[in-house]
């Protein structure tokens, strides 16, 4: 009978899961986890960023299991992450110590340290490269070898290949060997070509030194963690930034776009966008145990930090014009910053995040992009996709209840009409 559709769930789910498993294997093709990680680094970055878990191998595994669905891969990784203990909080990261692979400013042509265009699609033509159809592992290796050869010659012509230059530029200088050994190359090659540049000053610091940017004290209080603490409004800024950073990439971009297009506080100038590696360090876990019995052995380590690794991030500082009141009651224009930082290479999202950070700090609440409940509740991928997709669940009970109300209201309306008609007829007979 039709009404038993909701029953028999056990068998239906089992059958559905088998079908899902079949969908994954039916083509007979298999892609290695390593291949996913190596060929789709941007997708891996997006999954890790939205999951707030730096784990390239797990992200690739999740993508494989999810058959390439980003939404599903993030879901898997978030659910896994939520069961992990979080024993340490890293030291505050100073982004000016980033090893930049890319660093641009839309505000100034010449910035201290120089602009580094790095690898970007910004100035590429978005034409499908049909040659890639015929690409094989061999042709990729060939191309790789060829490019290295050309670069080596260019470097030598420019006199950059000499030993003393290499030393001057640090141990991580791009090793241009013409070997075909990818494994060995991975060891000798720096991750980013910008590593030799070392610490680059922040463009925002220049504006600050000119008295053009609002001054704030550096705040190193332990940030709030939206995954460990209740979301209570108004939220601290650290929580807002965290929720934006792990928000749905396209969701954050859409709201950031609204913010600069007309439902927000105007058009920023990107003072600086940088992408590169930042180093993560934690304090000695026993640093606080000053009265420990084994004091001596820890004594040397007390106060020292442990380097736990480096992760790639994209950081954006956007400059917005603001009006401030002067002491004499008059008004003047100055600048303030919107801040964005996302895991991996996510430039559009990082810029949109900086727009939203600025909009959310504003006192004025004319636009939804300035309303933290509107923005923060809705950019989270797990929550948005979860609630939207729950509409697929049966709602028989609530719908039956609504049906009962609607019928009652309709009956009342019909009764009123028939009363009115009787009344009309009464009028006529009089």
């Amino acid at each position, binding site marked *: 009978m039709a009404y038993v559709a909701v029953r028999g*769930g056990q068998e239906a789910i089992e059958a559905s899961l088998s079908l899902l498993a079949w969908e994954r294997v039916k083509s007979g093709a298999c892609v290695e986890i390593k291949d996913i990680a190596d060929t789709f680094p941007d997708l891996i970055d997006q999954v890790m960023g939205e999951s707030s878990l730096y784990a390239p191998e797990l992200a690739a595994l999740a993508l494989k299991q999810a058959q390439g669905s980003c939404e599903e891969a993030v879901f898997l990784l978030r659910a896994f992450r939520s*069961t992990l*203990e979080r024993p340490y909080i890293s030291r505050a990261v100073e982004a000016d110590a980033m090893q930049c692979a890319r660093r641009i400013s839309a505000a100034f042509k010449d910035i201290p340290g120089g602009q580094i265009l790095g690898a970007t699609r910004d100035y590429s033509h978005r034409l499908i490269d049909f040659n890639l159809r015929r690409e094989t592992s061999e042709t990729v290796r060939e191309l790789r070898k060829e490019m290295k050869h050309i670069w080596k010659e260019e470097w030598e012509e420019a006199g950059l290949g000499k030993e003393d230059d290499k030393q001057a530029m640090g141990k991580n200088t791009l090793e241009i060997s013409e070997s075909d050994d990818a494994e060995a190359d991975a060891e000798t090659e720096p991750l980013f070509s910008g590593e030799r540049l070392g610490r680059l000053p922040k463009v925002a610091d220049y504006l600050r030194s000119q008295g053009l940017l609002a001054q704030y004290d550096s705040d190193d209080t332990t940030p709030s963690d939206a995954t460990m603490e209740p*979301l209570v409004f108004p939220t601290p800024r650290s929580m807002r930034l965290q929720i934006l950073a792990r928000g749905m990439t396209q969701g954050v971009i859409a709201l950031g776009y609204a913010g600069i297009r007309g439902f927000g506080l105007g058009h920023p100038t990107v003072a600086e966008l940088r992408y590169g590696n930042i180093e993560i360090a934690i304090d000695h876990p026993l640093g606080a145990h000053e009265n420990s019995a084994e004091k001596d052995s820890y004594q040397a380590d007390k106060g020292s930090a442990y380097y736990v690794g480096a992760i790639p991030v994209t950081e954006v500082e956007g400059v917005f014009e603001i009006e401030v009141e002067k002491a004499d009651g008059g008004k003047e224009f100055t600048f303030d910053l919107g801040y964005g930082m996302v895991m991996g290479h996510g430039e559009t999202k990082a810029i949109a995040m900086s727009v939203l950070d600025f909009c959310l700090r504003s006192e004025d609440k004319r636009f939804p992009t300035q309303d933290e409940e509107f923005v923060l509740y809705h950019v989270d991928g797990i929550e948005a*996709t*979860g609630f939207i*997709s729950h509409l697929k669940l049966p709602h028989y*009970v609530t719908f*039956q209840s609504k049906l009962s109300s609607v019928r009652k209201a309709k009956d009342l309306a019909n009764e009123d009409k028939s009363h009115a008609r009787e009344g009309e007829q009464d009028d006529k007979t009089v």
Partner: protein
Amino acid sequence: MTKQYNFAFFDEASKREIRRAIIKGIAVPGYQVPFASREMPIGRGWGTGGLQITLAIIGKRDVLKVIDQGCDESVNAVNIKKLIHATTDVEITEETKRASIIQSRHRIPEHPLEENQIMVLQVPTPEPLRHFEPREAATRVLHAQADYTGAWLNLFDQIVCFGTTTTGADHPVKVNQRYVMAPSPIPRFDNLKLHQSPNLTLFGAGREKKIYAVPPYTTVEPLDFKDHPFAVEDFRGKQCTICGASGVYLDETVDEESGKTLYRCNDTAFCTQQAALKGLI
């Protein structure tokens, strides 16, 4: 699958935090306690609030019943049960009487609950004033000031427009004469079951990150007006075509062959039990 998860999925610190929120909820009946809702392996909006409560309170000796739309075998109930069972190995039952924890979406079972049972309801929208005021910070103030104008106005509007309140499920209730609470989308029929019930009822909203509670023997009154008293869904003159029960919440279905409207118990476990008692199956 290799087991890499703790008993009842969560790490113990997470369970402890959820239990603290539950205890606070019990201490202040009907008050929505914010908590750091964890990400779950099932979808947000698919019962993660109820699931987090169940996982935080469940012990090895508990007996669990999970229903969705009144049915133990509904796809989502099966899915939730499967996850809890996979991480706890607790006994699963369909018999309301035998369960120590009953997690449910949209229904409270027909069989009356007892003191040793905990009812866990999955909540999509915990805020009864949300339609009136979209901002969380503002509704928290309204609750603090016991300003429930919005909830009353909502009902009043409906009466003015339609001559009757048109709330479906989730008709707002006042708990312990203080907090107005969303009873989760249980039908109005089930609202009355919350009043002075001997069991503890816990409400979990995963996506909205709230936990609240109705402790045993608490006064729970649906909001209504003297001249428009609260009314439950109307099933007068109708009975279950399977077990013959009346005075229960019924599902409406159409017989494909005759085109006639038929009714049957929404609570399938209750229906099966009644039918067995009457020797019908």
